[in-house]
């Protein structure tokens, strides 16, 4: 996708990084639905904020690493 868009993956803009995090979080949410995890998560008493964090934090950390790697190049 980056090649088609003629973008360099490690030199994304802040907006691009944010978009990557949002898309990844949306995909993680969709995966949760596909894996039929809503009932289990609800019965475990997990808050919506925690679920959102579980979906978004890994991508946010990854993007941070990519941005830092971009700065050091």
């Amino acid at each position, binding site marked *: 996708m980056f090649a088609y868009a003629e973008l360099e993956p490690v030199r994304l803009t802040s907006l691009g990084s944010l978009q990557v995090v949002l898309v990844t979080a949306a995909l993680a949410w969709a995966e949760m639905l596909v894996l*039929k995890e809503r009932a289990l*998560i*609800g*019965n*475990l008493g997990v808050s*919506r904020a925690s679920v959102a964090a579980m979906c978004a934090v890994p991508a946010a950390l990854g993007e941070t690493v990519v941005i830092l790697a971009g700065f050091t190049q």
Partner: protein
Amino acid sequence: MNPLLIADCVSKAFRGRSVLTSASLRAVPGQLRALLGSNGAGKSTLIKIATGWIRPDAGLVSYDGDAYASVRLRQLAARGLFYLPDHDLFSSAFTVRAQLEMIRRRFDGAAIAEAAARMGVAERLDQRPSQLSGGELRRAELAAILVRQPRCLIADEPYRGIDPKDAEHLTRTFRELAAAGVAVVVTGHEVPTLLAAADHVTWCTSGTTYELGSPAAAEQHDQFRRDYLGPQHHDSAGSP
């Protein structure tokens, strides 16, 4: 005894089609309550509202004395409610053991091996839910309930798609939970099974609910007999 969970005068419409107009549901500690009604009467919608799975258009849900205009399953689950949905309880991504372990750790629950052995799924713990038969899956879900040790259990059509032996297992477990002081509400279309097991019958029809009392009293209720049980039904005393 006072109800632990109350869904009071709730209404719900989907895309303009009214499903519930003023329905109520109560879960009382030590009682197994059956919620009966025809297909499309709104039983599942009422159950979903009472457990915080969906929000009502109007009405209140109270749990252990606290009233909520809008409540989520996670809030009630943290206070001891367990919702057994009419679809999958377990994630398809993990083994049954891993998911029972999540419940045990989260709520300092009962021993997994003991619960699984009691439900006859000890040999299936290391398999994923998709590898279990319908009956085994339901018994694994019962093991989850035993691990959780809930104060209130709401089960939506738990008898669907299981054989008579597993159905008997299910009924026995529900009765044992009620005898241990758990507030149990079960829906379904298995009328003889539910009437034989229940302490109390609630009838959901035409968007509202009627508290019919004991199964014997329910069987004597003219409208319930005529509109739901039908002319072929014979009550527990054997009279038509």
